[in-house]
């Protein structure tokens, strides 16, 4: 299952082989922490609980998120430029929905 999600992925268009590339990711999500209070209609927790990035055949980054991550999560990490190809970004939401985005990195 895969849905659409608004994400802004910032990375250099080009990099040299072996260069450490910074990647910044903003994704639109309320990160609902859930409500379970007496007298209120219970609202289930709904957050993006995992985020993984694969590139050139391997997982290069993974993050487990909690309700303690700010709404519209922001993540910054680095990866070594190994070959021209797509970085695949995948978020898993409570309930099992998976969101996927790709961004191309050209390696010279």
């Amino acid at each position, binding site marked *: 299952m895969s849905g659409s999600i608004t994400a802004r992925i910032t990375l250099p268009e080009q990099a040299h082989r072996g260069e450490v590339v910074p990647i910044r990711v903003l994704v639109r999500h309320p990160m609902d922490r859930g409500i*379970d209070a007496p007298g*209120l209609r219970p609202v289930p927790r709904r957050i993006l609980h995992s985020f993984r990035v694969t590139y050139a055949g391997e997982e290069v*980054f993974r*993050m487990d998120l909690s*309700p*303690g991550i700010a709404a519209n999560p922001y993540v910054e*990490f680095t990866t070594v430029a*190994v070959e021209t190809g797509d970085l695949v970004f995948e978020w898993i939401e409570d309930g099992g929905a998976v969101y996927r985005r790709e961004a191309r990195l050209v390696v010279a």
Partner: protein
Amino acid sequence: MNAVRRRALLAVPVAAAVARDVAAQPAVEEDFAAAERAILAGRTPVAGGIAIDMPQLSENGNSVDLAIKVESAMTATDHVTAIHILAEKNPVPRVARFALSPRAGRAEVATRIRLATTQTILVLAETSTGQVHRASRDVIVILGACVDGG
């Protein structure tokens, strides 16, 4: 979360205030110390080797910038495998866990976290050699005045 700061300047958004206040109560609470013990799994942490970049004062507990750099060669034999963020006074003390490999090139991550109140942030970094590095920082969460419960 954010009970104190979120309490409106005025007593208007009552239902919203109640809802927000209890929003982050986990079904089963794991306390801060227990969370740290579980990650350490019997290992004794080494102080240092971690730089935490976070403002000493945070204007709004909804979004606190946090950047972490761990000293590591990030080679196949010696690299950081995991970085953990724990928040002492959050309803859920385990805020995030990052899994890294040598493909990261550097052990540097940044994110934005929610803080219920003024507290201590703890960072643990596990390495492929079995070590755990430990560093902490205090952060003051400013009580805002112009809040509307939105």
